C-alpha cells in the first residue's frame, strides 16, 4: 500500500460571508477578493508543507491543476512540481496532472513532464485529467462537447511522442504536426506511469482499463459514495480481467488529534470552510452540455455520484461531514482503522490524503501532516502485500511490501 499527500493550495482567507454574498468559488469568483500578499504566503507555505510531507515519510506528494478559482491556486502544477523535484530526494512527484486537452499543441505537456522526470531523476507520475467543467469549459473556453475527443487525441500524441524512436508526423483533427521529435524525453523508460484522476465518469474508467492507466477517484463525496463509484470501476475492471488494487487510487480528507474536544477545536471550522466555501460552485458551471456523456448522465441519475464538489448543496457541519465519510477524523488509531476499512472496501492501492484543506493554517497543517505520516501511515503500508505496483515511478522510494506474487 502506498500513501501520498495531496495538496490543493487553496486560498485560505475568503471572507466569513463568502457563501451568502457570492455565487461561486470558481469561474466568476470576485477578483477583488484576491490579495497578492496572501497568495505569496500561501504558495510558499504550500511548498513548505509538501516538502515537510516528504520528510515525514509520505511515499509521494501530489499537486494538481485548476483555473480561475479560490479552491486551488495552481493553474500550473508543473511549477510546484519543478520546485519539489529539487527540494525532495526520493518521494514520487505526482502531478495530478495536466489537462491535456487544453494545451495547443499538447506536445507542451509531453515536454514539461519529460523535463520534470529528468530533473526529479525519474520520480514523476504523469497525471492526465480531463479537467473539471469549471476549469476546461469555462476557465479555458473549451467546448465541453468535444473535450473528450480532444483529450483522446492529445493522449495518443503524447504517448507516441514519449515512446516512439523515430521522428513522426501527426495528422490529428485538433493538432497537426509535421515533425514530432521530443527533446527532452522522459528519464523513465518507456515513460512515466500515468494516473488519471476522475470524478466517476464511465468513459474514464474504460479508458484507464483499456490503456492500463491508474484510475484515481478524486471527489469529496467521501468514502461512502466513493464505494459506489469504485464498485462501478471494479466491475468494469474485472470484466477485463484486472483486479490489482494498485490500479486504483482514492482521495480522502484526514485530520488527527488526541481526543474529540481537540479535533473540534482544531479542525471543525477549517473543515466547514472547505466544504461550505471551497466547494460552493454555481450549478450552471458544473455541468455544461456535452461535458458528461449520455451514458454517464444516465448512470449518474441513478447513483448521484458523478458530481464534482457539491454544487447546489446546502451547508454542512463538521459532525455531519464525519458521519457521511467526507472527512476521516479521530485519534491516530481511529483514523488508521477507518482508513484500513476504506482501503479494503474501495480496493485501492494508492491513498491520497489531504492534510491541509480549507483554511487550515500552516502550523496546524504541519502538525496534521506529521501525525498522519508518523502515526497513521505506517499502520497501513502492510496492505496488499501480494500485489505488485506497476504504477509507481521507477526511481521513487518503495517502502511497502515487495514480496509481490500476483499481478
Amino acid at each position, binding site marked *: 500500500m502506498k500513501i501520498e499527500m495531496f495538496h490543493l493550495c487553496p486560498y485560505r482567507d475568503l471572507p466569513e460571508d463568502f457563501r451568502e454574498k457570492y455565487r461561486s468559488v470558481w469561474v466568476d469568483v470576485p477578483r477583488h477578493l484576491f490579495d497578492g500578499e496572501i497568495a505569496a504566503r500561501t504558495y510558499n507555505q504550500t511548498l513548505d508543507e509538501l516538502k515537510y510531507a516528504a520528510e515525514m515519510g509520505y511515499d509521494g506528494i501530489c499537486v494538481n491543476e485548476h483555473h480561475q478559482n479560490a479552491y486551488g491556486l495552481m493553474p500550473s502544477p508543473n511549477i510546484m512540481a519543478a520546485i519539489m523535484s529539487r527540494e525532495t530526494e526520493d518521494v514520487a512527484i505526482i502531478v495530478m496532472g495536466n489537462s491535456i486537452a487544453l494545451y495547443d499543441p499538447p506536445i507542451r505537456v509531453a515536454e514539461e513532464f519529460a523535463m520534470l522526470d529528468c530533473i526529479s531523476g525519474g520520480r514523476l507520475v504523469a497525471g492526465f485529467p480531463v479537467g473539471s467543467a469549471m476549469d476546461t469549459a469555462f476557465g479555458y473556453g473549451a*467546448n465541453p462537447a*468535444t473535450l473528450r475527443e480532444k483529450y483522446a487525441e492529445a493522449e495518443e500524441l503524447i504517448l507516441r511522442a514519449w515512446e516512439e524512436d523515430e521522428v513522426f508526423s501527426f495528422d490529428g483533427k485538433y493538432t497537426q504536426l509535421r515533425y514530432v521529435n521530443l527533446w527532452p524525453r522522459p528519464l523513465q523508460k518507456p515513460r512515466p506511469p500515468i494516473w488519471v484522476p476522475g470524478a466517476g465518469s464511465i468513459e474514464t474508467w474504460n479508458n484507464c482499463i483499456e490503456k492500463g492507466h491508474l484510475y484515481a477517484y478524486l471527489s469529496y463525496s467521501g468514502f461512502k459514495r466513493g464505494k459506489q463509484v469504485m464498485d462501478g470501476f471494479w466491475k468494469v475492471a474485472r470484466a477485463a480481467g484486472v483486479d490489482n488494487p494498485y490500479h486504483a487510487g482514492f482521495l480522502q480528507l484526514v485530520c488527527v488529534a488526541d481526543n474529540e474536544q481537540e479535533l473540534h477545536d482544531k479542525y471543525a471550522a477549517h473543515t466547514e470552510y472547505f466544504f461550505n466555501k471551497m466547494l460552493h460552485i454555481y450549478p450552471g458551471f458544473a455541468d455544461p452540455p456535452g461535458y458528461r456523456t*449520455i451514458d454517464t*448522465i444516465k448512470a449518474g*441519475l441513478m447513483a*448521484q455520484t458523478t458530481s464534482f464538489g457539491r454544487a447546489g448543496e446546502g451547508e454542512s457541519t463538521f459532525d455531519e461531514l464525519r458521519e457521511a465519510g467526507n472527512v476521516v477524523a479521530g485519534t491516530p488509531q481511529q483514523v488508521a482503522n477507518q482508513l484500513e476499512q476504506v482501503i479494503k472496501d474501495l480496493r485501492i492501492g494508492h491513498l491520497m490524503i489531504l492534510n491541509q484543506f480549507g483554511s487550515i493554517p500552516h502550523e496546524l497543517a504541519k502538525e496534521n501532516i506529521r501525525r498522519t505520516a508518523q502515526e497513521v501511515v505506517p499502520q497501513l503500508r502492510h496492505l496488499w502485500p501480494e500485489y505488485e505496483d506497476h504504477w509507481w515511478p521507477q526511481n521513487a522510494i518503495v517502502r511497502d511490501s515487495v514480496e509481490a506474487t500476483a499481478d
Partner: protein
Amino acid sequence: MNERSISVRNGRFEVDVLEGGSGDPLLFLHGVFGLEWTPLLERLSLGHTVVAPRTPGFGESTGTENLDDIHDLVFFYLDLLDELDLSHLPLVGHSLGGMFAAELAATQPERFSHVALASPFGLWDNADPVTDLFTISLPDLAKAMYANEKSEAAVAVATAPQARMTEVDPETDEGQATINYLVERAKSMSTAAKYLWPIPNRGLVKRLHRVRQPGLVIWGESDGIVPPVYAERFAAQMPNAVVHIVPDAAHMVVDEQPDHVAGLIEDLLAR
C-alpha cells in the same frame, strides 16, 4: 403535417423532416430549443408547403458526430436540400436556425428567394453580450425566452428537471420520462454548443453582406437571450433587409406571436 426521415450522404445522417400544407415550398429552420409543428408553421402552411427539418443532434435526427463546426453544418444542409430537390425557395430561420439560415443564404444566395431571420444568433458585440445560454438558471431562462413569464410555456421551462438536481427512479414511467427529457436536452444542447460555445460568433459578420435577397429581421421586443439591439446589426449587413420589432414577445417570438410573425413573412414574400 407529415413526418418522414430523409437519408443524407448514404445514411451518415437520418434527418426528420416535418412537412405540411400545399403550394410552393418554404424552408423553416428551428431554434435552439428544438422543433415542433407550431401554430406559426400551421399558419404558413395555409399558403405554402412548409418543410421543417430537424437538425442532427436534435430529437431522432442522427449524424451530429459528423459535424464539427458551422462549415460542416452548412454543407450538410446543402446536401439535404439537394436530396429534397429544393431551390429558389424562401428561407425562414429562428434562433440557432436563424444563424444557420444566414450562413446558408450567404453561401448560396441564388438558392433562396427570400430570407427571414427571427432572433438569430451569429453576431457578437462586447457592448451587448448575448446571454450565456449554457449557464443560466431555468427560471431566468424562462424569463429570457418568454415575454409573459406566467405563460404555460414559460412555467414549463422554469420548472423543468435538471440533470444535477434530479434523482429519478428508472423503474417508473415518470422516471423514464425524466431521463428521456434530460438525455434529449443534453444531446441537443451539446449539439448547439458546437455552433455557440463559448461565444456565439463563428465569423458570420464577414459573410452576412452576401445575404442580399429581400430580407426580414424579426425580433421579440423583450428577447433576453439575444438582445434586440442585434436586429439593426443584422440589417446593417444585409442590403435588402427590413427590421420588425414585435411587442409582447421575447426570444420565442415565433411561438409567442405566430399570427404577427406569419403576417410579416407573408409581406416579405410579396416583395
